[in-house]
């Protein structure tokens, strides 16, 4: 009798479906936590007074609140505001130009039976598959006088063949009748492009803009290659952060002053590093909710062509 009851109980609550749901739930929550935890940890270290950080610091709750690290980040380096300026410049100008120019080419390629359309499509695919490589590209930048020049962040990144193909595909989805009836009303190509096709392609353009925005904000490699180490005034924020993190690490390694408690100093450095990290990431995190609406569609379009 009792045995039967337990059996029913088990059947009700521990059947395969429930166990599987539990597994799904646990895994998803664990992964989400694993994504969030380092971020919270970083934030917590950055706002914690250095003397209260130690290696038992597991829970991301600052023991003693202090904004000292942030103060240091913004006052110690002379170039951080400059670096923020450079990053904002490259992100805004680079993204706007890139989206407009890519959309222009995409629009031209959607014109019906345009002579020379096919060769240009092949050219785009070729450019995607075959790159000039680091050194030849460097030599080209040198020839164009783009070394130690802020436009090196923008000009080479304007054209993106992938984006052109994706935008073109989405533009092809716009019903042709709309354009045809507009053409009867005397709308010319430029008006058609700016007033009709661009507004109607907003979702795909937004997705491309997001990818360009994030790419520009996050890139540091071009600064390392094309900007000489003496021109710190041209560093974007990411490269400034790279250099500063390395410097702080070196201070750790050299231990310049044995009188000072090494451990405290290291922790102080660590909170500065984390503050710098937070400052560098914050714009992306703030913008993220606005991105979310668009990027999944962009990824899907970008990966699969028909």
């Amino acid at each position, binding site marked *: 009798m009792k045995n039967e009851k337990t059996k029913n109980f088990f059947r009700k609550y521990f059947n395969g479906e429930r166990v599987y749901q539990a597994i799904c739930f646990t895994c998803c929550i664990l992964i989400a936590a694993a994504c969030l935890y380092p971020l919270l940890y970083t934030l917590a270290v950055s706002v914690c007074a250095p003397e209260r950080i130690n290696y038992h610091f597991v829970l991301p709750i600052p023991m003693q609140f202090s904004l000292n690290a942030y103060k240091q980040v913004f006052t110690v380096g002379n170039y951080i505001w400059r670096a923020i300026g450079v990053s904002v410049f490259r992100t805004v100008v680079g993204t706007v130009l890139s989206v407009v120019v890519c959309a222009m080419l995409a629009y031209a390629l959607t014109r019906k039976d345009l002579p020379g359309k096919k060769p240009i499509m092949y050219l785009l695919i070729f450019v995607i598959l075959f790159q000039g490589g680091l050194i030849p590209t460097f030599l080209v930048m040198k020839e164009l006088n783009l070394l130690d020049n802020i436009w090196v962040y923008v000009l080479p990144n304007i054209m993106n063949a992938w984006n052109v193909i994706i935008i073109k595909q989405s533009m092809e989805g716009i019903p042709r009748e709309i354009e045809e009836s507009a053409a009867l009303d005397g709308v010319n190509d430029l008006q058609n492009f700016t007033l009709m096709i661009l507004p109607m392609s907003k979702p795909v353009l937004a997705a491309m803009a997001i990818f360009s925005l994030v790419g520009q904000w996050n890139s540091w490699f071009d600064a390392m290659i094309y900007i000489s180490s003496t021109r710190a005034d041209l560093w974007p924020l990411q490269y400034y952060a790279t250099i500063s993190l390395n410097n702080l690490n070196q201070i750790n390694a050299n231990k310049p002053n044995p009188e000072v408690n090494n*451990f405290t100093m290291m922790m102080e450095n660590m909170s500065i590093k984390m503050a710098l*990290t937070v400052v560098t990431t914050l714009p992306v995190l703030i913008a993220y909710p606005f991105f979310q609406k668009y990027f999944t569609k962009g990824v899907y379009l970008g990966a699969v062509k028909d």
Partner: protein
Amino acid sequence: MTGSVLALKRADGKEFSVTMAKSFIGVAVAAVFTVLVLFVGVISKDSAAISVKGTFNGIDLLRALFSGGDLSYYGEGIGELTVTMPTALNAVAAIGVLFFPALLVTETVLCVLTLRYERKGLVRAASIVSLAGALWCVIVYLVFLFAGTPAEDITGEAKEAYRVFQPEIFWLIAALFLALSALIRYAITAEKMKKLKRYLPSYLFMVVPLILIAVFSLYPILLQFILSFKDFKLGDGLFNSVWNGGKNFKSIFADPTMLKVIGNTLYISLLRLVAGTIPPLLLSIFLYDLSMRRTKRVVQTIVYIPHFFSWVIIYSIASAFLNEEGLISILLHTSMSPLNDPDWFLTIVIVTSIWKELGWGTILYMAALSGVQPELYEAAKLDGAGPWQRIVHITLPSIASIIIYLLIINLGNILKSAGGEQLLLFYGALTKDKATVIDTWLVWTGMQQLEYGIGAAMSFFQSAIGMLLVFLCNSASKKMTGIGMW
């Protein structure tokens, strides 16, 4: 035959003769280049004093031709530079210079004849002359490219940097324009003119993008091709450096360290391929089957976030956990930071890249799964299929094609996907060896030790093999899954 056959009726009733326009094109192109060659030859005397530019300098070449092939220049810093040109080269150069006036005369005669008799054949003949001219320019360019000999200074020492002939880009530009003018005359008919007029705005839209592609994509590719067959020295410049045949490529494949670089690249890329496929796949299955809608959405929102972080940030966060006093180092009981430990290096690299891309990788799978009909699952449940059976028999088969597609395409990118940017940030003195893949090698050896020739050969190899692989993989994918990149 009258002009009206080839003519295009304009709206106002006047006849605009396509034939006339066509014949003028040839004359105009020939005239422009004749003027350029003769006058720039005079103007560019100064530059000729610094580096010998036999190709462009019409007057000097003619003078040399008549004075037995000796050219002498005085350049600041190099002193007197005497060049003795081989007779054959001299002749090529002289003909090269005289070519444009001759072309101008021929084209003018043909133009006059065309306008007089309005024969289609004459236009065609003129365009064939232009085409032949283009071919000739290319031949001259190639001769100069391969046959230029080093000039000798006053002591008789050969100066590699000053060569009798520089393959001036001028010849290629001339060839391009001549070929274009021939093509236009050959191909354009009245209807095509009409069409061209209609599509002119579209072509204007293309100008800026195509210039950008030419400058920032195609030009580096051309340089890469030339560089990879040269012994590049910074002082010499690209065109004056010596050709060394396939020596650069030989040194890639004969050198065991280079083979190790390639091996490392393949190894790390394969690790990334596995790490980038299986964890996102698992997560998307769990997410898809999770019945709690709200949790699902929240989790999705969270796991996409790390993708938007730069590697700089991820390195910084990782080093917070992995430095000597960091949380993970303490847990692992390591005396030194695992970041500097060669045994831990690849694990760290792969785990951090999983952290970054795990959520992002689910997007495609989720999109594919959203197309599966829920009725399938309902029916399977009624038939008594458990969760495991549903995964194996419904979920996986319905996204199998996209999994295979992604795998194949990533396999095609295997030489490029070792993640140089991440490795450049994560490496340390002890782990540099493990972090040496093609992309990082290009920075450390190619750029920083000025091995430009071998560097270019390496990236040429990377791109060429990469393209081949992607083509193969793409057609394989199309065959197996029906999905292709284009």
